[in-house]
């Protein structure tokens, strides 16, 4: 008998609370998931596809659905940290498969450069460029819009004559980073 009462009471309470929650879930229903937009805003938008997705937005969607956060090579540690902050997960070291080779000593951003004598105007790079930063047409020499180039590297591989190189942008007084030590070294030589 006692057991029965207990079960009844618990059942009643549960039913009551369940009803309350049910009402609340309708009342406080949230549409959509804005997280993808936020993630997308954190990504560097190089559209390089090094993460294995066809662009930054798709990767953002994938991350929102549980993909690893450490696949964005152009963004590097910084981006991973920001994503980790946003999602409240631990920072992971950048995925080895997606790591960029930082063999060059320069940390300046790189852009593509076409060696113009060698270009045969095949337009293969144009098709590869995710941001339409290469200008040219069939049998015409191509050129890079430096301001638009994201340095994603995608045009290098398709070039049949290997006339595209990634070159660091020049250091000017506008983008100088106040690295006084470097000057001092230069001056001792």
């Amino acid at each position, binding site marked *: 008998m006692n057991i029965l009462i207990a079960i009844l009471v618990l059942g009643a309470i549960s039913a009551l609370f369940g009803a309350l929650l049910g009402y609340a879930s309708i009342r406080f229903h949230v549409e959509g998931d804005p997280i993808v937009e936020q993630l997308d805003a954190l990504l560097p938008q190089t*559209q390089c596809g090094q993460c294995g997705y066809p662009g930054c*937005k798709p990767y953002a969607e994938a991350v929102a659905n549980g993909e690893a956060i450490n696949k964005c090579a152009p963004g590097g540690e910084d981006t991973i940290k920001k994503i980790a902050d946003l999602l409240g997960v631990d920072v992971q070291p950048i995925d080895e498969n997606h790591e960029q080779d930082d063999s060059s000593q320069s940390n300046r951003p790189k852009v593509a450069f076409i060696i113009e004598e060698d270009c045969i105007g095949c337009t293969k790079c144009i098709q590869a460029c995710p941001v339409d930063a290469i200008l040219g047409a069939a049998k*015409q020499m191509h050129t890079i*819009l430096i*301001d*638009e180039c994201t340095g994603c590297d995608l045009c290098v591989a398709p070039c049949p004559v290997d006339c595209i190189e990634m070159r660091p942008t020049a250091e000017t*007084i506008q983008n100088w980073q106040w690295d006084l030590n470097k000057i001092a070294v230069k001056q001792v030589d």
Partner: protein
Amino acid sequence: MESIIERINQGKFWHFHGGIHPPEQKAITSGKPIKHLPLPKQLILPLQQHIGRQGDLLVEVGDKVLKGQALTQSSNPMAVPVHAPTSGTITAIKKSVIAHPSGLSELCLFIDVDGEDTWKKREICQDFSKLSHQDIIKKIADAGIAGMGGAGFPTHIKVNTKPDINFLIINAAECEPYITADDLLIGEQSEAIVDGIKILDQLLNPAFILIGIEGNKPRAIKALQQATQHNDKIKVCVLPTKYPSGGEKQLIKILTGKEVNSGTLPIDLGIVVQNIATCFAISDAVINDIPLIRRVVTLTGRALSKPQNLWVLLGTQVSYLLNQTGFFREVSETKSTPNSPPPNPPVIMGGPLMGFSILNEQVPIVKTSNCILAPSKIEMPSAFDNYSNEVECIRCGQCADVCPSQLLPQELQWSAKAKDHQQLIELNLFDCIDCGACAYVCPSQIPLVQYYRVAKAEIRQQQQLDIKAEKAKARFEARKLRLEQEKTARKEKHDKAAAARKAVMNKKSADGGTASSAVAAALARVKAKKAAKSKNTELPVASGEGQSDNDQTETSPVKAAIARAKAKRLAQEKSAEAPVASNENQKNVVDDTKARIAAAVAKAKAKKAQVNKSSIEQTELSTATKQENMNESVQNTTTEAEEKKARIVLAVAKAKAKAKLKRMDKAQQASTTNNEEST
């Protein structure tokens, strides 16, 4: 506003937070007159000596130039021209180290001085009150005048402004230690300066003109008071000596009690601030038609045996000035340890607190250089240390007490070390004016300003990257949309063709192969072809869309190349074979000619392609830089409705990027002009 004037008349001023009182050291040079130097042998003129853009060159190597002749020009309002400081020959136009803390090289004009100092034709204007505003502004712009206090903001932009100006503030505070250039300029040229101020008065018509000058320049104050005694509008305000009262924002606060809102310019408060040396340059330019080709530079410091103020032509190398004033390199004593080279003496352009050390003695004097400071080790030991004495911050808060912007330097350095950009922005890092007061008082000897500069540069770069990312995103989306449309268009075409074929088939089977069916089939074929053709023509050559359709033609250069290679190889083979197989001569000759013909054809083809390419390429390149063209070409491929959509998307993205860029530009402008500091 009257109350402000009342207070000023009573000699009462407002205060800004913080400030320091470093040893002034102005007596080293303030007693001696400004000296004129003999002409140097060579001048190096950087094309850009101010904030903004550099102009286009008007001269070439080998040209003879006259004194005062403009060497660059530009239609861009942010560009100011540079002029030949004396007559001579342009010997080179190349990159050379410029007066910038980075020690980077920029494009410079090298002038070999001929020593004759021949002027260009000048038009001296006796009565400037007859000139129209536009004339005066044009004269100022053509004279290449940029703010001579520090930042070098183009003056003609600053004075070309909306009418209701409350205050014109003339900055003669010269609050940095050592520098006496303005002090002596006022003492010797007060009449001309007042003329300059009157010209500004005519242009801006402010309610009041306030000259802010620190109390440690009695002779200059007297000269100014004498020169302005008949003019009630001009008030000479003698300020208590405190660094950095010559900072634009600080001076405004002291004189008017108002604060310039963060991210805005003084003009928003109806205030225009001009440096006193700029006023002199204006009067020179408007009245005597002398462009900005010289300025007063204080050569000072205990490492000079003859420190003095000098009239220096722009472009004069620092080495020449140091030789003229008796610079002696201090012999480093026992200090040189084996692993560190003997410390080079520092030479500072600007004052000890905001100046920067220059890389070598080739650096030329530019429009904003007001001082060359060569300190001895005794007077400025910290400038000689080739290692940092930095220890951990103990949060003593002395930096916060002296910060004229009322920031929290200790928190800023904490966040700067951690590269916490978000926090730095929240702590208003960009309101820092780089005055160096915090680092001056820091007992832990932390180079605070250096930390802030690095952080600022990093944040600016990050913002640029963000803008770029936004742009890239828009372009990526636009491209995706385009590809999508192309795909659907192609599919449609295929479907149509398939439907047509099907219809034909149906007909055929029904009619049993009559003549009409053949006609219909032909018609359908023609139609399909036409559709394909129109599709092709629709595709512009500009950017690489529709390459797949063009594949056939595209590969021709490659083909040519392959053909050429083949021909070559054949020829080679041939020549190798020739001496051995003589009996096959006949056949070989035939082969030879064949190969030769093939090669020739290929060459011709290639050449044709080349010509074609280059001609189109030229038209291409001219348009290449314009993004709009790019977009147009993108839009061309789309049908009417879709075109509209894409255009809207693009326009929105563009506008967004532009707005952000503009905002940044504005902020940057504001901050840089605010940094302008008269000293």
